């Protein structure tokens, strides 16, 4: 796995504790998640056949995963036939080496990039930098993150933790180091900031010879790659350079061209809550004479596939709907998850991909109240609570869990005490323990926040106790804090 996040100390609770004390972050996250959440419900309700699309999307993905070997071979053949070259990468190191060699073969020292979680997962930019190749991120948010030298915190709005004045500071301070400087009279007006990014990157797009992308979907039948985006930087990267290298997880495959009719409805509406995102590009092999390379990435995915409960996580289309409805994510932000995959999906995908070796990864399955809102929101019906519960059973940290439960029980079983604790925590933080020990400390740190409906706590507690008693995970179609229904 990537070294990108290895600097992250402590487990999820420790990271969360830091994050929830950052009021700017909390404000931005609340605003962002609530805005998207409300819009998404509208975009989804507009379609009379949403549930049928969701059922089809889930089944198409499951079917593909069942026959992944066959479809990958079909993809390889179709891409090759259309003039592209296919590479296979077992892990991050292999993928990084393939991409580096391809870039070096062009003689170039710079590449432009369009936002890709797969390349973040493998730490490609860092690897390229070590090899003397500069990777320029071109998404506005990724640009902000790259110039600000920090980590993305959300799939879709990776700079959600930055406000406009911080962005202005970053542009003024850093753009010149990377290329065309920001205009000195730059204001913090969003259109002005966007315009500065347009000018800064336009030069780069026109000069770049090599681009690196990910892909939202690959069509086995035709060998077609599909990239959805909003800003047009994707079109720039996919179209202008002479060489295009796409690094795509093996689970992104769809069997037929027709299957896109399902996912081009599910993804935009679930993610940005739009009827359709501004731009979708599709291409097959070498398009308009471009030299095209597809790197098929495993990096732990076949391990996830072998997990009978966890394999459903590979259906994920990275829409981020589960992040936006998650009460834990809303308070902690993406960084606490210590991975490029934050939020509910990250809480299952990260340990599934890389195991429980670190304290952080072992604590991730606890970064949830099991309220079920993520499952309801997921366009491919991934039962995240089910996987969380299954993972908790697999974490070799039974004692931590029991300590956490005990503490949570003490607070949650007594509403009077809870109310008191909430008030105390607000006014006399010092008088109560700063952080409760164990995996649930993230909750205790945020209990002074007024807008978690109490029901969700009780719900959660009841479910947890019930499942403890019966030894079975809750799975009665979660209702939770989501105010959408």
């Amino acid at each position, binding site marked *: 796995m990537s070294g990108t996040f290895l600097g992250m100390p402590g487990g999820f609770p420790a990271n969360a504790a830091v994050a929830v004390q950052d009021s700017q972050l909390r404000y*931005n996250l609340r*605003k*962002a998640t609530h*805005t998207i959440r409300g819009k998404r419900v509208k975009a989804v309700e507009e379609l009379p056949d949403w549930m*049928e*699309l969701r059922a*089809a999307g889930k*089944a*198409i993905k499951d*079917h593909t995963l*069942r*026959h992944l*070997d066959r479809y990958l071979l079909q993809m390889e053949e179709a891409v090759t036939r259309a003039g592209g070259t296919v590479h*296979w990468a*077992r892990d991050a190191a292999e993928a990084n080496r393939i991409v580096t060699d391809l870039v070096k073969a062009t003689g170039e020292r710079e590449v432009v990039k369009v936002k890709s979680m797969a390349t973040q997962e493998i730490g490609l930019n860092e690897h390229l930098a070590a090899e003397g190749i500069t990777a320029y991120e*071109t998404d*506005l*948010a990724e640009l*902000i993150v790259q110039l600000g030298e920090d980590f993305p915190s959300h799939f879709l709005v*990776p*700079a*959600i933790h930055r406000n*406009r004045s911080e*962005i202005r500071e970053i542009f003024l301070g850093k753009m010149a180091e990377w290329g065309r400087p920001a205009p000195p009279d730059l204001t913090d007006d*969003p*259109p002005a*900031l*966007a315009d500065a990014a*347009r000018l800064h990157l*336009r030069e780069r797009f*026109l000069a770049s010879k090599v681009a690196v992308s990910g892909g939202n979907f690959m069509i086995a039948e035709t060998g*077609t790659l599909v990239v959805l985006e*909003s*800003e*047009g930087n994707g*079109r*720039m990267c996919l*179209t*202008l350079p002479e060489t295009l290298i796409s690094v795509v997880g*093996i689970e992104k495959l769809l069997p037929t*061209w027709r299957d896109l*009719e*399902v996912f*081009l*409805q599910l993804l935009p509406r679930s993610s940005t809550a739009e*009827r*359709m*995102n*501004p*731009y*979708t*590009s*599709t*291409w*097959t092999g070498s398009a*308009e004479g471009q030299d095209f390379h597809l790197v098929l990435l*495993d990096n732990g995915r076949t*391990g996830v*596939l072998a997990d009978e409960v966890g*394999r459903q996580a590979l259906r994920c289309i990275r829409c981020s709907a589960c992040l936006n409805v998650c009460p834990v994510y809303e308070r902690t932000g993406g960084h606490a998850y210590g991975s490029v995959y934050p939020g509910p999906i990250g809480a299952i995908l990260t340990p599934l991909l890389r195991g429980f070796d670190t304290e952080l990864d072992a604590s991730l399955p606890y970064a949830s109240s099991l309220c079920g809102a993520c499952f309801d929101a997921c366009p491919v019906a991934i039962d995240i609570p089910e996987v969380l519960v299954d993972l908790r059973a697999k974490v070799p940290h039974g004692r931590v869990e029991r300590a956490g439960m005990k503490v949570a029980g003490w607070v949650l079983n007594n509403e009077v005490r809870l109310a008191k604790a909430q008030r105390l925590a607000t006014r006399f933080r010092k008088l109560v323990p700063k952080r409760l020990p164990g995996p649930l400390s993230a909750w205790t740190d945020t209990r002074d926040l007024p807008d978690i409906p109490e029901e969700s706590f009780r719900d959660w507690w009841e479910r947890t106790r019930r499942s403890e008693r019966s030894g079975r995970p809750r799975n009665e179609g979660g209702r939770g804090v989501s105010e959408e229904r």
Partner: protein
Amino acid sequence: MDTGAMGAREEILGRIRAAVKGAPDVEIPRDYRTSVTVADPVGLFAERLDDYRAIVHVVPAADVDAKVAELTEGKRMVVPGERAWTRDELAAADGVVTGCAIAIAETGTIVLDTRQGERAQTLLPDYHLCLVRADQIVGGVPDAVARLDPARPLTWISGPSATSDIELNRVEGVHGPRTLEVIIST
């Protein structure tokens, strides 16, 4: 392909086969609308485009030429197919005028398939004027997917380029054309 790469391919395929061994196959239910019928495709398409803050004109076929002339007056427009354009010329032009391969009423989407011009030609100019014939407008996404040829590079356009990356404020126009204007000819 070197042997290391060959090794990776076989190893990944082997891991997959071991992982899914014995897993049941899955039927794909297609109970969603596999074709979408809308009462007034032109009206709905125009309304949806307007939601994206594209500029829309619905014009009788006979008046299209005059409308194009009016909208492009005094502008240096790229007309794909007319001649070759360098990238600098494209970037410096005021706009580009194209047709489309197909349009989708329900989502307000226009699809280009490079028969209207190379992809760079519809990307670098800051203004895109797109002509859509009423009979090119289909109801929904499935209708469009069925009619498009994936062998051609496709660009699906739904409104001008946009970002919500700064505090979730929608800003029109980052890298693509900042203005999208559509003439629907009836």
